[in-house]
């Protein structure tokens, strides 16, 4: 198997992890990974060196954005959960709590935070994936962390300023 494919194959578990955290749904996440792989293999000829991993993360991030846009056109997004308040402490509840906290983030902030914290990408790599300067990545990270802290502390989500 050529090196390109080997690198792609080796990244699949990590892509599944990232997709799961982005979508909070195992099936949708794997669909997203599948779409990413199809795109990647189809555009193999467009890939001229560089980091395969960052490139795959870029594709997945963009596909997820498309997915969210198409969802946004539909009025009903997802059922409201029975208990939508922050969970009580506990190992299991803790997992769901952080999930919900992530769900309250603006998309770009969530992507940046997950790429850094979960996927271990450098700020520079995230800047490439998101197509923005490093300073923007850092401010997204900072805002994400403030928002998550507010959520986990049980406070009201920070109001977003509308310009």
């Amino acid at each position, binding site marked *: 198997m050529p090196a390109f494919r080997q690198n792609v194959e080796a990244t699949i578990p*990590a892509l*599944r992890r990232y997709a799961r955290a982005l979508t909070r749904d195992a099936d949708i996440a794997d669909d997203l*990974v599948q779409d990413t792989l199809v795109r990647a293999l189809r555009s193999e000829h467009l890939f001229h060196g560089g980091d395969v991993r960052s490139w795959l993360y870029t594709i997945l991030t963009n596909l997820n954005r498309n997915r969210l846009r*198409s969802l946004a056109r539909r009025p009903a997004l997802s059922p409201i959960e029975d208990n939508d308040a922050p969970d009580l402490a506990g190992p299991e509840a803790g997992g769901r709590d952080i999930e919900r906290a992530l769900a309250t983030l603006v998309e770009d902030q969530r992507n940046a935070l997950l790429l850094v*914290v979960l996927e271990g990408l450098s700020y520079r790599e995230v800047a490439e994936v998101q197509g923005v300067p490093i300073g923007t990545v850092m401010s997204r990270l900072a805002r994400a*962390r403030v928002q998550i802290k507010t959520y986990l502390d049980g406070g009201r989500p920070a109001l977003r300023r509308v310009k």
Partner: protein
Amino acid sequence: MIDRDSPVTEDELHAYIDGELPADRMEAVTAWLAAHPEQAVTVASWRAQSERIRARYGTILEEVVPERLTLDQIVRNDRANGRSWKAFAAAAAVVAFLAGGATGWFAHGASIGTRPNSFAVANGALDAYRLYVVEVRHPVEVPGTERQHMTQWLSKRVGEDLRVPDLQSIGLKLVGGRLLPGPTGAAAFYMYEGASGERFTIYCAKAIAPATAFRYTTGDRAAAVYWADGKVAYVVSGPADRERLEKVAKAAYEQMEKDDAKRS
């Protein structure tokens, strides 16, 4: 949270916990945190967030990658994308429901590389079907008796050369059509009626995905068969009777193919 003239910036605190802090700044930052317990608590909470995120999702790395996500499978499925209707029909015959949920997708033998898009189209079409199928007095804007006018009008609005299939051979009469909002602009919507009053609709919109195989999706009582030919995406909706629906979809598909052949 940090004074403007502080010797340590907030960016540096993030870099510190993300392992991005240059080595020559390490000492300054740790010393500063030791002297500012309140900020140290905040930084610790950020670190705890990271740990919770990793704890929540980290184990996914150890999961066995599903068969459909292996590269061999991806390549194989992607090739299947370009096959003819006959191959698709054969593939459709072996598909199985995805258990649970209001919507099950059939995608064996066909890549679902475009699922987010096709999903949106098929859902839009099913919504339209549910909305208008119960309409007794005004199900359509243009009656089926004005087929030619309707075809021209809808083709112009959708921006593609559309055909309105004749499904008399399988006992369906054209009730008429209407214009609807689609995923990327206008969509055309035709309604057909059988002898016992059962209704089927065909929804056509500019394709936002490359050509795709036939897929079946089912909702509560209604279901749809979806495909795209590269230019136009089609969704045939009707009562949730898979066999009948596939027959209608196939008839519609063949009609449109025949028209295409005639025109070219």
